[in-house]
């Protein structure tokens, strides 16, 4: 008696799997066994019953049955899907995610008039009926805290940039600065989920997964979507960054982001253990794959195929990742551009350099996370550290991509999940202040393939509180990113829970033409 490959219970009697019936029927039987598929089928049975009664008993024929088994419960055929809707300007993207919410007033959104309003209360008319976070809603006063830092004009465009970003300021003529980005969420987790997945609730695929699903891989030896986390600086106020942010949600798990560790081996257990050479590994994988194939034939669960492809990817990564992470051949010019910090794995500068190397090797989407921007207090103490950690890396990455001719077809994005308030959280003194979460406006920038260089888009009011011109909500921001990569955000969909799910959600979103090249 042949046992199910996963079955260890030899005492059990024969099951449907042992009956002399066609394998197709067995597969269908097996498919009933997962809860989700069971419910899916049950729902459809009701539908078919209703249809059958409507058709007077003639409708339920062999054809109808075939339609049922090939229905949307099965994996959705990719095929033609793995192509842009139109010729893309950017083939790949690098997303520098500033987790925590960088204060736009201290970095980009220059408000010289605020200096005169130091410690004055922000007018109620500006704040409106906004609900604040629990961290400042109890405050008796909302005193205006002008930026501690001076701003200067840079580049041919004469863009105002804070003294905190001396490196980034050098490339303002290449940047597309969006001062009117705004979000619906006021707390980290919902806001960061909204930025990444288009929905505040967990369970939706993130931008990178949608790209992997919609555009496919450019390099068979590396993951399509990679995530780099920057080492945590304990002095900073670090909000957690979880794998939910690079999850593939309801898409197949092969589209999830693959994280590289910030210290030690980039990928754990990737190298072969002592005594196991690559040939042995190959044989082992072949055997495992064969068993997995059998499982797939019997259970028909698409996730089994995802598992097979991930094992194969890991095998190929055994050679491709060490090559990717081997910086020994980088010329001296690299280190003078990115700075000595880039030699230390896990720093932001190192991750920027890795992002450039991934772009060269055809990784479709790289997301670099930098935590610590959640400056509720001690802005003057923390912000210089945060900027010093990130400013040069951003500049080096863009400059490096540009000089190597990669910026033409790479989109670089710098964004956090929200901005910070103009009024001080906690005590305000001439030396120091804090800033709370602010969803109504924040500054982001992009550069590279598809976007219009050297512009500042959108305007905020005198308090950097409300958007007064050209608002860019998160869904429009994401629709624009997809557009640069050749995707119509309304067409990249996946049927799930009865909805054609998409990154930009159900509220109508639109590409922002003013940002496009």
């Amino acid at each position, binding site marked *: 008696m042949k046992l199910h490959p996963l079955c260890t219970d030899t005492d059990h009697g024969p099951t449907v799997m042992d009956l002399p019936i066609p394998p197709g029927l067995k597969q269908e039987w097996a498919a009933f066994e997962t809860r989700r598929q069971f419910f899916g089928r049950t729902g459809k049975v009701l539908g078919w019953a209703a249809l059958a009664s409507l058709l007077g008993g003639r409708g339920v024929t062999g054809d109808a049955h075939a339609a049922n088994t090939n229905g949307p419960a099965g994996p959705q055929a990719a095929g033609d899907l793995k192509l842009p809707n139109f010729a893309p300007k950017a083939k790949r993207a690098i997303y520098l995610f500033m987790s925590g919410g960088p204060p736009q007033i201290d970095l980009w959104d220059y408000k010289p008039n605020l200096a005169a309003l130091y410690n004055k209360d922000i007018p109620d008319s500006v704040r409106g009926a906004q609900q604040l976070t629990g961290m400042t809603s109890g405050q008796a006063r909302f005193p205006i805290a002008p930026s501690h830092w001076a701003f200067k004009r840079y580049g041919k465009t004469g863009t105002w940039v804070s003294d905190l970003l001396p490196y980034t300021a050098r490339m303002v003529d290449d940047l597309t600065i969006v001062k009117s980005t705004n979000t619906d969420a006021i707390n980290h987790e919902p806001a960061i989920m909204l930025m990444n997945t288009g929905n505040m609730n967990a369970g939706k695929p993130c931008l990178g997964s949608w790209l992997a699903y919609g555009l496919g891989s*450019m390099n068979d030896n590396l993951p399509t979507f990679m995530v780099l986390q920057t080492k945590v600086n304990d002095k900073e106020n670090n909000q957690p960054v979880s794998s939910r942010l690079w999850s593939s949600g309801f898409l197949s798990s092969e589209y999830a982001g693959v994280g590289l560790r910030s210290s030690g081996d980039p990928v754990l257990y990737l190298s072969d253990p002592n005594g196991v050479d690559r040939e042995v590994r190959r044989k082992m994988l072949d055997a495992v794959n064969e068993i997995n194939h059998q499982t797939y034939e019997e259970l028909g669960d698409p996730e089994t195929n995802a598992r097979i492809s991930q094992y194969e990817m890991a095998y190929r990564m055994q050679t491709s990742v060490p090559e990717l992470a081997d910086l020994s051949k980088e010329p001296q010019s690299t280190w003078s551009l990115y700075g000595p910090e880039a030699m230390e794995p896990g720093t932001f500068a190192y991750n920027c350099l890795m992002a450039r190397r991934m772009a060269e090797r055809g990784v479709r989407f790289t997301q670099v996370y930098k935590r610590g921007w959640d400056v509720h207090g001690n802005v003057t103490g923390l912000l210089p550290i945060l900027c010093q950690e990130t400013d040069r890396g951003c500049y080096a990455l863009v400059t490096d991509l540009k000089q190597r001719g990669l910026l033409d077809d790479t989109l670089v994005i710098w964004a956090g999940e929200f901005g910070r308030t103009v009024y001080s959280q906690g005590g305000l003194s001439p030396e120091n202040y804090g800033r709370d979460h602010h969803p109504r406006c924040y500054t982001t920038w992009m550069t590279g393939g598809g976007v219009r260089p050297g512009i500042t888009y959108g305007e905020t009011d005198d308090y950097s509180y409300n958007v007064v011109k050209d608002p860019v909500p998160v869904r429009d921001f994401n629709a624009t990113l997809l557009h640069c990569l050749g995707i119509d955000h309304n067409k990249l969909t996946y049927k799930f829970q009865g909805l054609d799910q998409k990154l930009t959600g159900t509220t109508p979103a639109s590409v922002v033409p003013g940002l496009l090249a």
Partner: protein
Amino acid sequence: MKTFKDVIARADQLLPQGRSIRVVWLAALLMSVELLLLPLIFKLDGQAHGNWQQFLGRFHPLVVHVPIGLILLVPVLEIAGLARPALREAAGFVLKLSFIGCLGALILGYLLAYGGGDVGAVVTRHMWGGIVLTIFVLLCALARPWWISGSVSRVYPALLSCALLALVWATHQGGSLTHGSNYLTQYMPAPMKQILLVDYFQSSPASSGSFYAMHIHPIFDSNCVACHGEGKIKGGLRLDSYDVLMKGGKDGAVIVPGKPESSTLLARVTLPSDHKQFMPADGKPPLKPEQIAWIRAWIQQGASPSAATVNGVTIREESKEPTLQPVGDYSGMMHEILLMQQGQGAKLVQVSRNPADGLVLSTVDVAGSFDDAQLAQFQKYAPYIVEVELGRTAVTNGCFDTLAKFTNLRALHLEGTGVTGVGLQELAPLTQLTYLNLSETKVTPANLAPLGAMKNLRHIYLYNTPAQPVSGADAAQSASRSAL
């Protein structure tokens, strides 16, 4: 003329009601003359007339479709009548009905133009088209009985053909009035335009580099001239050239140089969109805020026809990228391509779902081993390949020979390869090439000289080459896009 008399004479003999036929013809002649005189009696003077004329006139676009449908039905019934005689009987009825429809549409159309004060070349053409069509339909209706009786076989078909031609002409003019004269040709594929010489006939404004010609005129052209142009001159105002724009309409100038606040044109486009006098009228899309801002700034600074710039307005230069040639359709070869790349390792990736966007040759998976010989194998698909990624491959200067045959090539990546640039001149015929990456190769300045002649090649990358060495510290500052 003699034959015409003969025809009438013979008809008289043939038809039982011979006497009355003369009366009918006389009446028809009279009516035709009246129709022809109509525009001369009630001249279209560009002035709006009574409300009831306009009210009735606005039914013209509705009613006009009745005779169109009926007239088109006549030849169908006549032909179908060969097989089913009953249908042929119906044709006569439909023909008479269409004449009545024509007459109705004509009168309403005239009321529309007269009442609304519409004048212009297209209005006139549309009007004459309608009159001529009505007369032809009338003649058809009169000539048909001879044809049925078999006495005169050619006159009716000839008249009916003329009526159909007049129908096409008149309705096309009407369509141009409603949708603008470039409605049909705007999205016509370029090759078809060339064949039909569309652009040849379309007058373009003096495309000097002035702010007016570059930015102001196009706004009017796409939003206003459908009603304020050569074809239709609502309110006596034309906006299709600078001179007529400044001349203004029947109420005087619409643009006062230097004074945006007293310029009627600006006032009318900035009214609330539900205002009676708001322009563009009739629910057409309003001007965009930035367009209004440009017009205001342009008027403010003198409304000059020739000034090249207007202070305070920076408009992004139109992309000077060369127009991309669509490549042919490779879909038929896709199976073959898939088979080939399975053996090759290198891939031909579709740029997008639209085959006209072409293919990208991607070698990243087999970069180390991909050489000139393998590249040569892709020559067969050369016309469809728009981008070749050879970064860090084993190709040498020998590749230029093959690449010269990739006539639709737009981007070429050779970074980190062994090429030294000898043979680069072979790329000269690639007129579509805009991007060339030679970073980290041994390319020397001398070998780059031939690229200077390639006008479209504007993105050349030479980072870390003998032509553009990097010296450590100032790498960050080195110019990356070298202009040749």
